[in-house]
């Protein structure tokens, strides 16, 4: 079996350690190490420069700040290296378009790390919708709340925004995929209520899709310190012939830990990073289009950008106004 040589660019993102472990464990991957702009050393080989890492990689996973996605993607494309980019794809539509253009011109693939599509519960929902069992899906109430990740996530320059930039795209992308439809209009109420940040930590979005379905997304960093897990992803789906509840991370044990003085949930469901990175790598090896493309990343980013515009203007905003 041929293995793909994959490197990790940057450790700025909270997901970086998990992605590194995933790359080290996947049988179809030869993890060639990482580059960290801070110069810190990590498990696996640490390369002194981005160029050194790109030279040994056929693909890279970007785990940098959001704002750095554009720069690293352009460098990787110029080196002929495929890119799996942490979400959101970029912090502006212009950056995202530049990334798509660069990868297309260099004939490398651009993928986005959106693990929710890999969830077996989401796949079951997709199957139920496509089988017609639910009838036409008319409405969805979705949530993707979490804890405030700290670091640069509350820095508008590095992150591009707050909770809405961090969490909207998981559900927006899953909705586009599940309903095989596009978001056309967005309403949002945002607020900085919990952590004294210059960016929003609470957000409620409402989306219109082109064929008439509507959906809401709670993207708030609203899970308290004492909450037993980081957050979650849920969907309440109303079809004309059936209603479905999906709770992606429901499969867990409750651990009452006297030693640590906490109660926490210990997940035992399928590891979504393994499935998500694995499907990207498999597509590259097979020469197929990657399952979640740069185009998909741009579409879900447009939802976020429209949400910020909506919150500012206090009215719903059409995607066409921001695309």
């Amino acid at each position, binding site marked *: 079996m041929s293995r793909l040589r994959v490197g990790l660019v940057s450790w700025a993102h909270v997901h970086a350690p998990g992605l590194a472990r995933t790359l080290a464990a996947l049988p179809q991957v030869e993890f060639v190490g990482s580059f960290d702009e801070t110069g810190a050393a990590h498990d696996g080989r640490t390369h002194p420069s981005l160029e050194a890492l790109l030279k040994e990689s056929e693909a890279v996973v970007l785990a940098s700040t959001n704002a750095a996605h554009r720069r690293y993607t352009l460098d990787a494309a110029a080196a002929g290296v495929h890119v799996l980019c942490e979400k959101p794809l970029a912090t502006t539509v212009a950056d995202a378009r530049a990334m798509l253009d660069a990868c297309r011109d260099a004939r490398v693939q651009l993928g986005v790390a959106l693990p929710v599509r890999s969830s077996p519960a989401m796949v079951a929902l997709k199957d139920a919708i496509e089988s017609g069992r639910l009838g036409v899906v008319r409405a969805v109430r979705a949530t993707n709340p979490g804890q405030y990740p700290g670091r640069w996530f509350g820095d508008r320059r590095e992150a591009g925004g707050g909770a809405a930039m961090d969490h909207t795209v998981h559900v927006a992308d899953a909705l586009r995929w599940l309903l095989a439809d596009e978001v056309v209009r967005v309403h949002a*109420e945002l607020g900085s*209520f919990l952590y004294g940040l210059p960016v929003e930590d609470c957000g409620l979005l409402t989306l219109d899709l082109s064929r008439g379905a509507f959906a*809401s997304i709670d993207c708030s960093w609203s899970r308290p310190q004492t909450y037993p897990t980081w957050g979650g992803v849920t969907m309440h789906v109303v079809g004309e012939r059936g209603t479905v509840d999906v709770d992606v991370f429901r499969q867990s044990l409750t651990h009452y830990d006297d030693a640590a003085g906490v109660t926490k949930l210990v997940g035992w469901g399928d590891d979504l990073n393994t499935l998500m990175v694995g499907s990207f790598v498999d597509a590259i090896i097979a020469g197929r289009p990657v399952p979640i493309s740069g185009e998909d990343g741009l579409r879900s980013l447009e939802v976020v950008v429209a949400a910020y515009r909506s919150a500012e203007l206090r009215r719903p905003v059409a995607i066409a106004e921001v695309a």
Partner: protein
Amino acid sequence: MRSVTLRIGVIGTGFAGSTHARASIGLPGARLTAIAAATIVEAEPLATELGARVAPDAAALCASEDVDLVIVASPTYLHAEHVIAAAKAGKHVFCEKPIARTLEDARAMVRACDEAGVRLAIGHVVRFFPEYRRAKELLDAGALGRAAVATLTRGTLPVGAARAWYLDPAKSGGVVLDLMLHDLDVLRWWFGEPARVYGKRLAGGGALDYALATLRYEDRPIVQLEASWAEHAGFRTTFEVRGDRGMLAHDSRAVAPFVVQSPAGDAGAGVIPAPTLRETPYRRQLRDLTERLARGEPPLVDGREGSRSLGLGLAVIESAERGEVVRWTVPA
């Protein structure tokens, strides 16, 4: 009105009418005397069960000598006619929520009761559900700090053919005035008046109705509401309030203290299952009203308060129909 015992007449024998009528049985200082429905035949079974007489129709019940308090639990679009008739006959009125289908009707009802010098109470019963009361106590005590983001959901089975008027949004207001109105009233009770609303609902009304609303308070919180007539597994409520010092969460599916299973299947999954409490919220609501009437005090939720919650529900519907944000100003 001078009678020591408050004599109660009920108009309507649907879910609300039968619930209130049953809640009145054994209530200290009160006695159920008469029941009216659209037809005598519809009123008879409940009247027989509860030992009350059948009034020929709503107007006759309102005019009855042996009625001091009229409970109006007719279809929403008939509330104004029945409440005004009761007021003109000098009776206190308890009216099921929503107070009316339109604010014009609601205003006329409030005016009629004011002019007649009778009390008008509106049945926003969720204010008597202990989980919502306990949450209010915690919120008022500052247990969560300042509320930042909240979600409240309420769902039940699709409306059956037996309640056909429900399926006509012009008569009932659909799922927004049936279910979401409860949570809009809860929000006003917990947090005061919001600044603006954005609503979405399925077009066309009908048995499958579903609505979402986002509400914004001038500063905070922001709130997501869901109301569903597509909860095929049966009645469910949830709420979650996150403040800057903590979070409260409730799910009615997770708090049943008494669950029966048998080879005959689940007998408990009704439209709205009875809560496992010594005193049901409906009984508590009626007791609160009768005690206030005896003391000469206004009801907890009066006609003006019920009108404000109705107005907020109508703002959600207006927003959904126009596809725009609607600013909320308290109706005069």
